């Protein structure tokens, strides 16, 4: 069981120290949302505000997305750019993103100061909202969530109920293999250092389908995509200055039409753009308003890249990007 209170205190004291010493420009973290049971991102500029920072089971966002924003910010004309590092609170899964961002030279290592937090699992907000359905609407935000063995305890108004962890945990946390941040300036909490083996059990159901069943499955999923591009906007590795799907000149790669033909093209191209880079932070799937299981596509490519090219994104900043490197002995048995 993780003592969230202790972790929160340590995050606050670290943040206070960094801000007071002026070592960071600001800190990106999580705060309690006054209107929702789910925590939300917050930007802390002043030491006096550090007590807003928290870490708990509802800190679902991958905050590194905001690091990319910061790196893209151009200083206003005549203004001296403030190049101090940005402080950021990351979970182990999110820390892998930083490795990729550093590897791809989007975020220089010295522009980020990382508070790595060991192993806070997260819940799936959609599942939590379902679980809270019978609690009065305006009370849901005050619900307290605690770990208890294999269960979560939901507390509100002096009452409490128990729910199996499996029913609330985010899918990505159920198959998590890394419980300690892979990159950080300070690591808070204790946990297993070793990576677990990823068996990719969660995509087996699709792999076991016949090709036509697979297509029927994906057709149903992709057909309902509304092409809001939230999966792209939430993805810290989708940082292109101008996305190919927004470009009009010299050629419009994909029509704006929302239909299977255009949706499938979008999702397949996006999957390829993330192949060898995606660290499975799960943001794409979490933010999808149509609940499309986007992660499964990414995970399959992670699996195949591992099997074929022995590529493990998000571990080592010195490693070359998968598509920016090759091995003379790469497999190519299907090639004529």
């Amino acid at each position: 069981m993780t003592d969230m209170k202790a972790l929160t205190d340590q995050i606050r004291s670290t943040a206070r120290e960094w801000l007071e010493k002026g070592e960071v420009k600001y800190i990106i973290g999580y705060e309690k949302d006054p209107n929702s049971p789910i925590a939300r991102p917050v930007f802390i500029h002043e030491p006096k505000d550090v007590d807003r920072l928290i870490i708990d089971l509802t800190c679902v966002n991958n905050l590194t997305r905001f690091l990319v924003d910061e790196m893209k910010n151009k200083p206003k004309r005549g203004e001296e750019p403030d190049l101090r590092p940005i402080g950021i609170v990351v979970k182990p899964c999110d820390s892998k993103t930083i490795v990729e961002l550093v590897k791809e030279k989007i975020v220089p290592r010295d522009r980020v100061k990382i508070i790595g937090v060991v192993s806070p699992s997260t819940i799936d907000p959609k599942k939590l909202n379902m679980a809270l359905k019978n609690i009065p609407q305006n009370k849901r935000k005050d619900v307290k969530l605690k770990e208890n063995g294999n269960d979560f305890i939901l507390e509100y108004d002096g009452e409490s109920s128990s729910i199996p962890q499996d029913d609330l945990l985010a899918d990505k946390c159920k198959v998590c293999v890394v419980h300690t941040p892979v990159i950080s300036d300070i690591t808070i909490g204790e946990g297993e250092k070793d990576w677990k083996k990823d068996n990719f059990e969660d995509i087996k159901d699709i792999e076991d389908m016949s090709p036509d069943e697979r297509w029927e499955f994906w057709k149903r999923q992709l057909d309902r995509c509304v092409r809001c591009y939230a999966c792209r906007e939430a993805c810290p590795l989708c940082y292109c200055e101008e996305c190919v799907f927004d470009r009009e000149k010299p050629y419009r790669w994909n029509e704006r039409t929302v239909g299977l033909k255009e949706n499938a093209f979008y999702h397949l191209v996006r999957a390829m753009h993330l192949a060898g880079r995606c660290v499975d932070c799960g943001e794409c799937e979490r933010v999808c308003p149509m609940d499309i299981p986007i992660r499964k596509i990414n995970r399959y490519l992670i699996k195949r890249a591992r099997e074929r090219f022995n590529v493990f994104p998000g571990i080592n900043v010195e490693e070359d990007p998968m598509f920016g490197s090759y091995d003379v002995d790469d497999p190519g048995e299907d090639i004529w």
Partner: protein
Amino acid sequence: MAKLISKDKLDDLLSRLKEQEKYEVFAPVEVDGVTLYQHINKVPSLEFTNSNKPPKDLFFPQTETMFQLERDDKVFVGTKDIETSSDPILVLGMRPCDSRAMLILDKLFYWDYVDPYYKDRRDRTTIISFTCTLPNMPKESCFCTSMGGAPDSNEGADMLWTDMGDVYYVESLTDKGNKLLELGGNLFTDSDQAHDSKVAEIKVNAKKAISRKLDTNGVKEALEKSFESDYWDEFAARCLGCGICTLLCPTCHCFDIYDVISNGEGRRERTWDSCQYSHYTAHASGHNPRPEKKHRQRNRIYHKFLYMENNLDIIGCVGCGRCISGCPVNIDIIEVAEGIKEAEGIKEAEGIKEAKND
């Protein structure tokens, strides 16, 4: 007088409507955990909170072919109408917030120029709203009662049905609704006083269950003087610019128009667009009137609470809560609207903002 229809008679009703008047029927259907309005031949469970995508899609489809292009040898030289159906449409099970939203879209799409595509479908469609009864409703973000609506509101609907267990309590509100009663004939039975009072009780409870509130008093006034407020920086800092809030909004109406050539055939289409996208307002020259996310979020809030009211005399929000529950970073329209009031008040009274900047 109100009527009743037994739940096990719904399929019969559907058959009658289809056989006698060729009604096309749409209802919320849950597939893979996502509720969407779908064309149905058999009545689905109808146990739903609300659809993920708003039913405006049925009147103003996300992508719609406006007309085809006429070809002359290698070039397109004109337009060709596409064939449209004239069959009546029935939407079975709209939430009252969404049917109220239709009144807002009506105002917009009939503003001086009539949008022919919207009007065509709107005129053909009969809307049956369902009272939001417990335990399916309310969802965490519903706040219709603050926006002039209610879980039992009948505005914008042709009929209001209330779930009473085995039967629906049926109130017809318009000629279109009466037509349905006529076609249903003996499938509808008369309600008695016991039903009436039970329904009244259900409705009272439904209303009580909506406890999220937005006090709209003062929002407009606050917005009128806070265009340049720092508040917009604050709340939009975490915005991802994804556009979920607008695409899922039952009253957002922006669209893009463009031509598509596919396999030698040309057509003009329109597709929902969003003021949250940077290229939405970008000029061809590269100049962008709303270059940053805060400008675009600000536009969304202003559009709902001020611009719509100034131009069309109606607030552009029905309190369905989709933008709140859909937002990946918890941007909450209630909090923003309350927040801007507060920011205005604080700013003038205590000068906290100035102190903060020092």
